[in-house]
């Protein structure tokens, strides 16, 4: 979705000759014995919206603060647009930060807040007036210029904070949970505005968030963090469809995880025997794993078909088909979530879109068949 600006936005991270705009090189940050950020290396390219996604305490905010200059890396270095940032204080960095609490100056009105950074840089008065006005129009706060922060709603404060951090035209804008304080409807709306704004100004965004939906919507690429490490970096579809580990599969979206062992390991397909599932999983591509190793097959709830009649098998024999009883149903309007209990006791999560208004409903305790395509399971080894 973030790539809506189309084919013009290529994927510079796939081009080995492209010069990264922000380079994080083996950065580690320890607080006493605690490793907040552990040997992180990242390359971010000009014009990207890069999202650091992770649970609270995973080190994402610490990494962001190191880019802003508020924390010093214990080891490693950060380079922005070819300039080594080691020892450069926050007030001399070509980046600006939008704080989670917005940190608007309560004794200044909206206009003064936005003008603050420009005044600090001794930009000529007439230019300040013009740039502040333009920026306030851009975030649709032009008519609130004389208000004090406490006279604004949460969404309006967020806009002012955004305007204040963008008006200095930073090379990189750091956003710490930019939409965290907004309610759901406003958040969705603002996500698309943020993308539009970024597109218009061409500033590189580095966003920290714990909300995977937010990351999926905003990001050109996502870096999933856990215990101070980047466990996977890639485009939203890559992260969602090709998670590299159990953690990523589980953290981004919901997933059914089946533990099993490889029973057939061929270059073009594998079969996984899973006691948990009580069936064999046939996957239509080869994987690299040691024979007899324990593997996990991850299947997304929306990729599981549910039927009352036995479906046609997608694999050889009865592979990829299991039976179970509907234990619980959650009707969400656009789709319904079914929890299906298998004979083995394992509960499988299945989502089905409610495409018809009068569908013959599957109800509680009904016996159903679950099946999936041979390409749907993702096999991870850790």
């Amino acid at each position: 979705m973030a790539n809506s600006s189309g084919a013009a936005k290529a994927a510079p991270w796939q081009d080995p000759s492209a010069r990264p705009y922000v380079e994080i090189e083996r950065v580690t940050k320890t607080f006493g014995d605690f490793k907040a950020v552990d040997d992180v290396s990242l390359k971010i390219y000009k014009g990207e919206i890069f999202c650091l996604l992770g649970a609270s305490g995973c080190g994402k905010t610490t990494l962001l603060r190191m880019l802003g200059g508020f924390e010093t890396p214990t080891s490693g270095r950060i380079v922005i647009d070819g300039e080594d940032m080691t020892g450069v204080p926050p007030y001399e960095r070509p980046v600006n930060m939008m704080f989670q609490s917005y940190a608007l100056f309560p004794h200044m009105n909206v206009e003064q807040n936005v003008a603050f950074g420009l005044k600090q840089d001794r930009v000529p008065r007439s230019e300040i007036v013009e740039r502040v006005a333009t920026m306030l129009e851009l975030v649709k706060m032009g008519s609130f210029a004389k208000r004090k922060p406490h006279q604004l709603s949460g969404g309006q404060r967020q806009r002012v904070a955004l305007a204040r951090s963008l008006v200095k035209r930073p090379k990189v804008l750091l956003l710490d949970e930019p939409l965290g304080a907004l309610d759901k409807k406003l958040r969705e709306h603002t996500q698309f505005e943020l993308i539009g704004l970024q597109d218009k100004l061409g500033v590189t965004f580095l966003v920290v968030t714990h909300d995977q939906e937010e990351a999926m919507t905003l990001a050109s690429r996502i870096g999933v963090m856990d215990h101070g490490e980047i466990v996977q970096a890639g485009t939203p579809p890559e992260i969602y469809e090709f998670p590299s580990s159990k953690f990523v599969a589980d953290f981004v979206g919901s997933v059914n995880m089946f533990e099993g062992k490889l029973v057939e390991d061929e270059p073009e397909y594998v079969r996984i025997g899973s006691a948990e599932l009580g069936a064999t999983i046939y996957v239509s591509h080869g994987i690299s794993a040691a024979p007899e190793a324990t593997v996990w097959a991850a299947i997304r709830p929306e990729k599981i078909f549910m039927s009352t009649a036995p479906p046609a098998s997608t694999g050889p024999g009865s592979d990829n088909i299991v039976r179970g009883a509907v234990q619980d149903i959650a009707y969400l309007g656009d789709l319904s979530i079914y929890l299906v209990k298998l004979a083995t006791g394992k509960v499988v999560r299945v989502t089905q879109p409610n495409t018809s208004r009068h569908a013959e409903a599957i109800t509680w305790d009904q016996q159903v068949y679950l099946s999936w395509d041979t390409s749907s399971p993702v096999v991870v080894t850790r």
Partner: protein
Amino acid sequence: MKSLRSLSKIGVSGRGLVVTLPYLWLLLFFVVPFVIVLKISFSDIDLAIPPYKPLIEWIGKNSLAIKVNLNNYAFLFTDPLYLHALLNSIKVAFISTLLCLVIGYPIAYGIARSASTTRNVLLLLVVLPFWTSLLLRVYAWIGLLKANGVINNVLIWLGIIHEPLTMLYTPFAMYIGIVYSYLPFLILPLYANLEKMDWQLLEAAEDLGCRPWQAFYKITLPLSRNGILAGSMLVFIPAVGEFVIPALLGGPNALMIGRVLWDEFFSNRAWPVASAVAILLLVLLVPFMMWYQSVQARETAGAR
């Protein structure tokens, strides 16, 4: 319950009682004494006990004479001593307040930014001197400042000076005493203000191009304005009328209005003049007190 209900029948409610109590207190311990002092300030001096003539007198059968004597006030403005003492008091209080601010701001700031565990210890240390009587603490300064006192002895022993410095009974000693005694009154309200400060604002300022000292000047200082004003008033207002410290440390030349009042009252037994001085001082300080009140009100209202 029964008595309460019968009270409410005659229009007295629990709420009314609660509200009345502070007013009653003010009436008894402020308004009544004030009126008495005001009355004395308009009366004539007399060699009697008490040493002034009554304001209201029965003369003859059915006539009541009220004699308002304005001479006491006129006297305050004809004798330059009083005006001089008053101006000097204001000067001393003003300088003391400034000194307290210069010393107290970094202390309050340091406490507000310290770890919450050490914060309570530091605050305790600020109030700790109050556990000893003010008089004792001021006397202790005499021991430190006198010619063969601790400070002179140490300086001579170190070879920095050869003759003892004259510090006691000078303005210097008086300022030390006042600043030392009133410092906590400035630190505490200022700390309460700084403690509420969102320190992320300073990071935001640095992010927008401020050096740390610029961030302090543009963000911390304006945001702590109310704390500065409240603390300064708490030092300035009592320091104007201060009597004990100038009397003990300042020597005979420390002409302060509190001292003049004392002398008029006890040495000259000129109660009417002393009362006039007291009223004048009060009238002078009321604007400051009102200002302090409005600052306090703003501080509570703006505690967002």
